[in-house]
């Protein structure tokens, strides 16, 4: 899936791709990621790993996402992380997470079963409850997610459409004034 991310230093659009990833291609804590995507993907049933790379440097993983279909019916975003070099003050590229989450929403429509079609769930679980609240707030404001349970959030229907429009629609087609950062 071709997408566009933003190079923070220049504010320029950069062509990128979201690709299905094999276990061997997934990043790990040896590469300073927070988790071992390769080991986690192996453990999960009905799960597929995706990563985002730029077209210019396809060997460098900019972000990862694991999409799971619970009981082969229920879309669930099991895992999202951006590369260490895309975090906080070191951020090289913007919109990486947004593109991956929007793609997961699209998968919820193509892979979801009956009432789960277009219904993407995920859980926000941090050790510190305050951090959990902050992360939920980020997902609400940036990725149109709504809280539906103690730790569970949902992106569905109009919110999903808005997410796809923001992150997977060509930037030049967008109206002026929209926040394009992730």
């Amino acid at each position, binding site marked *: *899936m*071709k997408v566009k991310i933003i190079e923070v230093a220049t504010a320029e659009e950069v062509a990128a*791709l979201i*690709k*299905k990833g094999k276990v061997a291609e997934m990043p790990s804590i040896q590469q300073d990621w*927070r*988790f071992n995507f390769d080991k*986690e993907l192996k*453990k*999960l*049933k*009905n799960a597929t790993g995706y990563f985002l790379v730029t077209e210019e440097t396809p060997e460098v993983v900019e972000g990862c996402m*694991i999409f*799971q279909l*619970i*009981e082969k019916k*229920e879309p*669930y*975003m*099991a*895992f*999202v*992380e*951006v590369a260490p070099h*895309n*975090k*906080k003050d070191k951020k090289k590229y913007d919109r990486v*997470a947004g593109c991956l989450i929007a793609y997961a929403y*699209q998968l919820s*429509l*193509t892979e979801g079963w*009956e*009432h*789960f*079609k*277009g*219904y993407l*769930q*995920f*859980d*926000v*679980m*941090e050790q*510190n409850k305050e*951090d959990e609240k*902050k*992360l939920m707030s*980020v*997902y609400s404001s*940036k*990725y149109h997610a709504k809280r*539906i*349970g103690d730790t*569970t959030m*949902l992106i*569905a*229907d*109009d919110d999903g*459409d808005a997410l796809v429009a923001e992150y997977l629609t060509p930037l030049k087609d967008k109206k002026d004034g929209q926040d394009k950062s*992730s």
Partner: protein
Amino acid sequence: MVTEVTIGPNDGHTRSKEKAAEMSALAKLHHSKRSPERLLKNAMLKVQYGMEHYLQDEQVSFDDILTIEHFVTDFLKVLGINKTAFARFIEMDGANLNKYYRSDRRFNTELALKFSHFFHTPADLWLKIQIKNELLLLQKEKEADEKYSKYDYEKLLQIA
């Protein structure tokens, strides 16, 4: 410490029975409140996103080709419209339209524009799928050519 937007790792299958039941009930409730327009839109988007993912999937081979007719059929199934009615609405003769589906006639820009307006999809999506499928066919023909190129009398007679 919140690390940017990291979620997980979580396994949806390890949810408790109570939580799974609660989430299922919420999903059904949400679904029951969806308007007919939203249900239709989701069904149409499923087909459109399927087209976009097919287009971008580099692992598709000739044996996995999905034709324009395949996607039209999916869309029409969602809309509850038959192919004859569709052809009539876009001012095409049904038999003529079938020639485009079978590639007896080359899918063109005008047809792409009619399809895109009818199905609310980008026009270039239909043209790009046509091009992708043509390239897959070309690749298959090239492979066949390479497979059979060894059957050449010049090789047998070792003529330079």
